[in-house]
């Protein structure tokens, strides 16, 4: 009875378009969520706060996984929507610093990121831009934003009270609480952490349902063979535009959540830099681009690891020249330490060469194979037991 209820609950989230459709997977996922929820009680406050940052990045990973893994649109500029949402949030929140103002800032930031993706996507997809050219255009957009925001140091670059601040960035964005009128919810420390975990879980499950829906199949078909799919009567331009736009919303959500984490309400143009733009591609390539859970896990693990390498290198070794701006590394998307990039780059190469589909799909197929082999062995054993039983009964005759 409970089994069928559970199965019915699971059904919308399962299908061939997602990794992990077994009871074992859901148990592991539940354990993972419990682990994340328990993390602030186990680890130090600072570690939990850092984890909030990685959780915010997980949405950025999801946004790329969704558009690239499921619809074949490799955007090298998801950080553009991340950063545009972050700056927009900052501008609105600085000008209207109340609880309501911060809520409004969230809505406006998501809207602007979404609209930006929709406009860019419209010109790309209805203009017949495909494949690698989409990648190049999105990267160029991020680079242009990087340059543009970098030259906004002068006092004339301000929106109301919000100074854009050039490469020094925008500081003092109010991000402590969100709410309406005098009622606010705390958005700091562990409170923020739990909100992030909850939002991430909801987004993950929502995306699972989406990619296994009819629209999800249309996305996959467009990824596999666009011309063929159009000739089955699908409006593939629209499918790509809708996917890319929603990917922009997710990246924008990532940027907004990052601003809530950001100590001192700080954002600078490095969020648009090429090395920042490469990070989502690295997370998703390593985690597995056709696996939402792989993208999330890779973002969390790689960023956590990245931060630890910075820590180890700065305390364990005397390499002052390599860590010129540790202060910055905790507050910007780009790690200041070049060594961590070298190590992560090596991991990326290894994964691409050894398991091009990514780590999560490889784990799934391995578990699947092991389980099948165990099953077969059990069958063989029961068969041979049967045979033995038969021969034993036959002997007295």
């Amino acid at each position: 009875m409970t089994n069928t209820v559970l199965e019915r609950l699971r059904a919308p989230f399962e299908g061939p378009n997602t990794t992990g459709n077994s009871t074992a997977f859901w148990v592991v996922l539940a354990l993972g969520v419990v682990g994340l929820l328990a993390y602030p009680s186990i680890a130090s406050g600072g570690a939990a706060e850092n984890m909030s940052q990685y959780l915010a990045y997980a949405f950025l990973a999801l946004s790329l996984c969704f558009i690239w893994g499921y619809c074949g649109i490799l955007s090298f500029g998801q950080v553009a929507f991340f950063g545009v949402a972050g700056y927009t949030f900052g501008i609105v929140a600085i000008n209207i610093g109340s609880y309501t103002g911060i809520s409004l800032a969230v809505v406006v930031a998501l809207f602007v990121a979404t609209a930006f993706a929709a406009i860019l996507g419209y010109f790309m997809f209805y203009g017949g831009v495909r494949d690698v050219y989409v990648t190049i255009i999105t990267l160029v957009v991020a680079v242009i934003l990087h340059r543009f925001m970098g030259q906004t140091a002068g006092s004339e670059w301000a929106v109301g009270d919000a100074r854009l601040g050039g490469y020094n960035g925008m500081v003092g964005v109010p991000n402590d609480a969100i709410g309406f009128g005098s009622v606010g919810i705390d958005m700091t420390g562990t409170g923020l952490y739990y909100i992030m975990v909850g939002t991430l879980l909801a987004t993950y499950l929502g995306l699972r349902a989406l990619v296994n829906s009819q629209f999800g199949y249309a996305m996959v078909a467009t990824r596999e063979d666009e011309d063929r799919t159009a000739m089955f009567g699908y409006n593939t331009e629209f499918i790509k535009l809708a996917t890319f736009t929603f990917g922009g919303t997710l990246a924008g959500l990532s940027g907004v959540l990052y601003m809530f984490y950001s100590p001192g309400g700080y954002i600078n143009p490095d969020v648009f830099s090429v090395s920042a733009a490469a990070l989502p591609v690295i997370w998703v390539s390593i985690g597995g681009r056709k696996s939402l859970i792989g993208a999330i896990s890779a973002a969390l693990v790689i960023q956590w690891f990245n931060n630890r390498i910075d820590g180890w290198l700065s305390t364990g070794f005397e390499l002052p020249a390599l860590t010129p701006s540790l202060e910055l590394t905790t507050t910007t998307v780009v790690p200041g330490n070049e060594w961590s990039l070298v190590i992560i780059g090596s991991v990326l190469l290894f994964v691409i060469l050894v398991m091009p589909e990514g780590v999560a799909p490889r784990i799934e197929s391995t578990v699947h194979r092991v389980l099948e082999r165990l099953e077969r062995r059990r069958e063989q054993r029961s068969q041979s037991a049967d045979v033995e039983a038969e021969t034993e009964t036959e002997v007295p005759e």
Partner: protein
Amino acid sequence: MATSDPTIKTTQAVDETGEGSSRILQTRGLTKRFGGLTAIDDVDFAVDAGELRCLIGPNGAGKSTFLKLLTGRHDPSAGAIYYNGAELTDLPPYKRIDRGISIKFQVPSVYPDLTVEENLRIPLQRVASKAEFEERTIETLEQFDLLEEIDTTAANLSHGQQQRLEIGMAMTLEPDLMLLDEPVAGLSVEETEEIAELLVELNDEDVAFIVIEHDIDFVASIADRVTVLHQGDIFTEGTIEDVRSDPEVKKIYLGEDH
């Protein structure tokens, strides 16, 4: 009105848009130029509802280009296309499919990474409700002799199975006009015969076909009428016997193919 357009040549054969008649598809003055090359040159062509028409011609005659103009993959340089009396010259591909046209590509274009069942689901989910999926999937796979391969990844199917799967996928849309670009290329004799039987059977259900094919015996076994395309224009049209006995047709084939 389209008829007042001076770029469209009206000829006796196509002075109707097809409305009210049994014409399912008609082109008028259809032309496609690629730079200096005229691939399709002022073609007036018509197919009746439920007809099985074969399109033959030497390599480079413009057969595939002609099909791509019909599906909207290419935009014509001039001319117009009418389907069931309505013009669809400027419609995007997906809207033409909605009107009841379906196509099988020249190279078997199944989704290689998806299973047979998932492949079939892509066209099926556009026309069938979720409750019907299973029944229609099994029905279609039985008809195209692929039921045993339901869980096979399409890339692992044989060439013939892929051809059949793609025809099956295209047919699930329940088209009134089916375009087939070389459906038996690379198939064995038995497989070719099977496809021929299948097409005749489907044609009996009032689906009109335009089939591009090089295999003249295959054409003879299925075609109601044959259109010979040569250098982007209609060279001749008639029954297979007419075309086979036409010495001019032999000449263009021998002149260009050998």
